[in-house]
């Protein structure tokens, strides 16, 4: 099936992929804490949400049965299936449950971000600045 060197190489490439998503989470967390502009914080919050959703979808991926047969998305394409077709489908398809939960998470993240944008606009109209250091120094 697979020789040791191709298995090591494919594992290495997948590990590079997973660790780059984790580094994205770390960098966007740094961006939320360390940058003083409210708009930069909103951009970093969206990057954080997207990276965590990608990590959830990676959990649902599965290994290829052999290197020439790719896995398929969880959508049945035969409308008159035999029991053997359904067994093949369950043997090859990726996990559909993380995708359904991430769908909900994307819409909720979008709704909260839109509300944050309106709050930032209101802060700018009243205090004439979006810099959190200047807002913290105002009195009253």
């Amino acid at each position, binding site marked *: 099936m697979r020789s040791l060197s191709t*298995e*090591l190489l494919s*594992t*290495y490439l*997948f*590990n*590079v992929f*997973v*660790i*780059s998503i984790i*580094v994205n989470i770390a960098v966007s967390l740094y961006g939320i804490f360390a940058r003083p502009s409210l708009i930069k914080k909103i951009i970093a919050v969206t990057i954080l949400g997207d990276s965590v959703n990608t990590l959830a979808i*990676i959990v*649902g*991926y*599965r*290994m290829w049965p052999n290197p020439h047969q790719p896995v398929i*998305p*969880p*959508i*049945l*394409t035969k*409308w*008159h*299936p035999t*029991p053997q077709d*359904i067994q093949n*489908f*369950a043997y090859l*398809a*990726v*996990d*559909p*449950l993380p*995708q*359904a*939960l991430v*769908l*909900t998470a994307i*819409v*909720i993240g979008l*709704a*909260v971000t*839109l*509300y944050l*944008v*309106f*709050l930032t606009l*209101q802060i700018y*109209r009243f205090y004439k600045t979006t810099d959190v250091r200047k807002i913290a120094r105002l009195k009253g």
Partner: protein
Amino acid sequence: MGSKEVVIVVSVIAFVLLLSLAITVGGLGYVLPLPNVREVASWYLKTTYNPFMKLFSAMAPEGVTAIVWDYRGLDTLFETAVFFLAIIGSVAIMRGISLKGVKYDPEKHGMSLIMKTVTRIVVVMIIAVAGSIALHGHLTPGGGFQGGAAAAVAPLLVLVVFSKYFMDKIGVSKNAMLVIRSVGLIGIGLTAFAVVLVALLSHGQAYVFQNQPKPYAPLGFPYKAGTSLLGGSLLFFNACEMFAVAAGFTIVFLLLALPEREVIKVLRGEKFEH
């Protein structure tokens, strides 16, 4: 981009490559990605369209849409509620502001004639594609959210290329979009309770969000019309959700596109309208 940023980027890339080499060769005890899906996922994949197990199946070939509206329908109900609360919050912040008395003038408002003509063609195509994505949600990748988010790009385009005065002229206002959103949400509620109401009238038993007949609840939506698959209640859910999501996004864009001088006038107390 200064040299400090180039050094940071190169060092982070080297860190990622070396760390994954250490994990691969050193060995963590398991191999990524995993070779089998979990038991729950295996059950969902086997029963999403299974004509031999009709009492346990959702009879829709699309796995993800069946989970979103049939197996886990209550999650989607609460997520729609959260989205609605965010829109209400945004409308409440920008209350009392409206643009009256400025008529749309094709020469002064908006971009050039080439942009307007191209936008007229593209907007129709966007809405047609979004409707197709939403209505085929039980057969191909797609569904209510996907169609609604794609259809929300069209009002944004019209707002930027024409202007907000054009949207007021053709009647797309915040109140009209709120009515459309409420109609979509009422449609979702009625579809969720439809089988319960029919079963109450005929002395049977039924669940809320029921799609297909289940043990001890023999009523359900039809899953076939002739030879084409209907997907049960998924078709109605997808259609209502598309209208609700597109109208919700349009409300947010209409509120964001108000010019600042009108808003400042309201905040200083010179004007207040409902």
